[in-house]
């Protein structure tokens, strides 16, 4: 292509990796530009691993990891982090669960102590379990049940696309399953999945590598060694015929639709996967993108539009099977079939005619900005590197992403677009039950 392109810059965050005798993998990435640190512990267990009859259990268990541990009473974790000037949280994903803190750097040892303490063992009690079941039910009410488009499409589309329980089920969980959970279930889950050999610790920011190494060893070195469990095979065959369902959302004022297509394995075929990450942006990033220009501006058949990789919008921290998703809200009375037909037409056009002059380069420049912006936050680096270590053994990939995205070629994007055929698509339509 003849178009001038912005040079894609890179970050050079240093990466130190080592493994403790108990199997815990550690990533240190110093950056002394601000007196803050990020600490992340990532366990290789997520929604896909929860047992049948226990939907929502991985997330419920995440809550239980905050309810006290070997040396800490209930509430102590929160108080110790915040009383050091820091913030904390945890989150449950399809393939992993993370626990993290951002703190002023004088709290490094405290944060390591807190994470090591719960890696040795959370306090699993009936009282805490019942309390957190209640809290999780309120979380589901506020995020799913009491609002329009709750769980759309991240909870509603997987059961259309997938057939097996691990990939298809509701990761927030049914109230019945949550209420049936027992302390014994939690103890089993911890023993099996929260093993030192199944975890990665990452520390980023204002640290001295030698000092941090010593502190990590001091606090995590005697966490009892338990090996990582064998990860089950979650693969499913690709679709060979279109799948389409619909449901009525009583609160939704406008119709909506989401479609998804399977993509190459993000870990074992990264080179084959990356063009899809770029394609999603070519299609939907901003007013100059293909589908926004066509559907929103020209046809006016869509009122808002998004496209991304992974059901949780997590292109670089999910394993196979995963998907490219497009989702759109339509004006009142909008025609979902027409929107899907137009998407097919635009994908066809992209595959057949290719990109316009400069279209790819400008999309890649914008993607570089997004990637770099995410890494500016100290915690963003710790979390991302922890997952890259866990899933790929390659935390330094974080530094390479803007460049690798920039090296995707027009041919690759066209080829990716050519695979997004209607017969490989799973789609779900939201019928506006709240239309006025």
């Amino acid at each position: 292509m003849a178009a001038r392109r912005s040079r894609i810059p890179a970050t050079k965050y240093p990466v130190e990796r080592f493994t403790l005798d108990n199997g815990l993998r550690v990533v240190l990435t110093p950056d002394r530009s601000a007196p803050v640190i990020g600490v992340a512990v990532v366990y290789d267990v997520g929604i896909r691993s929860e047992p049948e009859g226990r939907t929502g259990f991985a997330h419920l268990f995440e809550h239980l990891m905050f309810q006290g541990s070997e040396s800490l009473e209930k509430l102590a974790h929160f108080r110790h982090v915040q009383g050091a000037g820091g913030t904390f949280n945890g989150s449950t994903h399809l393939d992993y669960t993370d626990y993290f803190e951002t703190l002023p750097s004088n709290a490094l040892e405290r944060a390591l102590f807190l994470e090591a303490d719960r890696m040795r063992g959370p306090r699993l009690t009936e009282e805490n379990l019942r309390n957190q079941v209640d809290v999780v039910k309120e979380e589901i009410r506020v995020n799913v049940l009491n609002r329009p488009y709750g769980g759309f499409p991240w909870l509603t589309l997987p059961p259309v696309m997938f057939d097996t329980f691990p990939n298809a089920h509701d990761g927030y969980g049914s109230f019945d399953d949550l209420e049936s959970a027992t302390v014994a279930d939690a103890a089993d889950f911890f023993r099996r999945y929260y093993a030192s050999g199944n975890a990665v610790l990452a520390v980023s920011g204002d640290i001295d590598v030698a000092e941090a190494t010593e502190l990590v060893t001091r606090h995590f070195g005697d966490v009892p060694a338990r090996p990582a469990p064998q990860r089950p095979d979650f693969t499913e065959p690709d679709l060979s015929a279109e799948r389409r369902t619909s449901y009525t959302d009583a609160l939704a004022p406008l119709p909506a639709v989401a479609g998804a297509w399977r993509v190459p394995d993000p870990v074992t075929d990264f080179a084959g996967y990356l063009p899809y990450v770029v394609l999603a942006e070519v299609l939907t990033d901003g007013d100059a993108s293909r589908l926004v220009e066509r559907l929103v501006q020209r046809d006016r058949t869509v009122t808002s539009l998004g496209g991304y990789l992974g059901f949780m919008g997590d292109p670089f921290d999910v394993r196979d099977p995963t998907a490219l998703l497009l989702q759109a809200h339509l004006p009142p009375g909008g025609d979902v079939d027409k929107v899907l037909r137009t998407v097919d037409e635009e994908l066809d056009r992209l595959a057949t005619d290719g990109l316009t002059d400069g279209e790819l380069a400008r999309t890649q420049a914008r993607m570089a900005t997004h990637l770099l912006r995410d890494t500016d936050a100290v915690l963003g680096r710790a979390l991302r590197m922890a997952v890259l270590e866990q899933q790929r053994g390659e935390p330094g990939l974080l530094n390479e992403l803007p460049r690798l995205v920039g090296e995707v070629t027009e041919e690759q994007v066209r080829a990716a677009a050519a695979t997004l055929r209607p017969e490989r698509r799973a789609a779900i339509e939201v019928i506006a039950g709240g239309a006025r």
Partner: protein
Amino acid sequence: MTVTTAPAGPRTLPPLGPTRKLKVPKQAERTLRNGLTVIAVRRPAVPLVELRLWVPFGRVHLARGAMLSQTMLSGTESMTSVQIAAELQKVGGGLSAGVDPDRLMLSGAGLVTGLDRMLELLAEVLTGASYPSDEVATERDRLVDRIQVAQSQPAHLAREALLKRIYGRHPYATQTPEPDQIRAVRPAALRTLHSERVHPTGAQLVLVGDVQPEKALDAAERALGGWSGAGRTAELPATPPLEPGPLLLVDRPGSVQSSLRIALPAVSRTDPDHAPLQLANLIFGGYFSSRWVENIREDKGYTYGPHSVIEHSVAGSVLVAAADVATEVTGPALLETTYELGRLASLPPKPEELEQARQYALGTLQLGMSTQAGLAALTSAYAGNGLRLDFLAEYAARLAKASIEDVAQAAARYLAPARAAIVVLGDAERVTPGLAALTTVNTERQA
């Protein structure tokens, strides 16, 4: 690796290292001849630059203001909306516009090598936005759709009801236009509004990133020195004092949760009471380790994410506590909330509670300044309220020296439940008995 064996049994929490002093980054400021103030702050961490342009926008017609921000990037005399977006993308950039009752905000981020180009495109829009009819028609429909979606969300409905309850006849009382008002906005009205109100006098541009501050100011001056226009400005009246009174219950039949919103009086960032009030707010419900969260979430399981925060606007400040609670525990949740407010307003906090809140307040100042985006947001919010980043050091000093007595006094003055304005959005049939047992309830049916 060598393994140090630690003793069995409960282990001792390690102490914190020495506190690092708050360091405000390098910055520069210039007021251009056209009246635009430009502030540039250096944080070289990643090769990007963040941009925030604050244009005072008080007393603007609600629907026209909303439509102006929706269509400002929709075209100029020489460029279409697609061209503007594509030219921004080329340098890794993007711009978006938004309004609130205080200001019009244009914000974006891009590769630092594209700063000049981003500023040129910003100038193109500021001096030449043309509000083309076709695009305005499209965006009008989209904005109506978006408002309809917002109006189906409990968080939005509760917010709307609370603003009306707090502000009465003040311009802050209504912040979302009705669909019919949007449908009535014509391109000519947008051009008029733009020429009257989108001008550099009193506006502040903040640039934060991998820049030399003086060079960033030069770049801004080159690009925006020609932005002119001396339309009118409008002062907002001070917000009215908060009027306590009966609980306002907004009916949302079938709601599986009740959205509980409590407004309390507050003061501006520069008021001597602000730091003690901030600490009192933290102790009450302003962070996870607060009395309110520990009570209604971690003890009772009534709710997922209760939080209270002091909201600062140009014309006044207010403290808002918010929790979405299960319908069946709406009364009990209000009871515990009133109890925790009353307890803090009546009895001084414990020293360790205050120290924990103080460390949190000081630490999160450091965290907030540790990204380009965080610095840009903070610098812009400060500038819009007449402050500069160096106020952070002053604020940190006030937080550091607030005593138990200061905090107890602030709590007594501002957190007393007798001063609260309370709004609940929920299923009136199911929650009225529980609420009416505790306070007087006025019920409003939804339109």
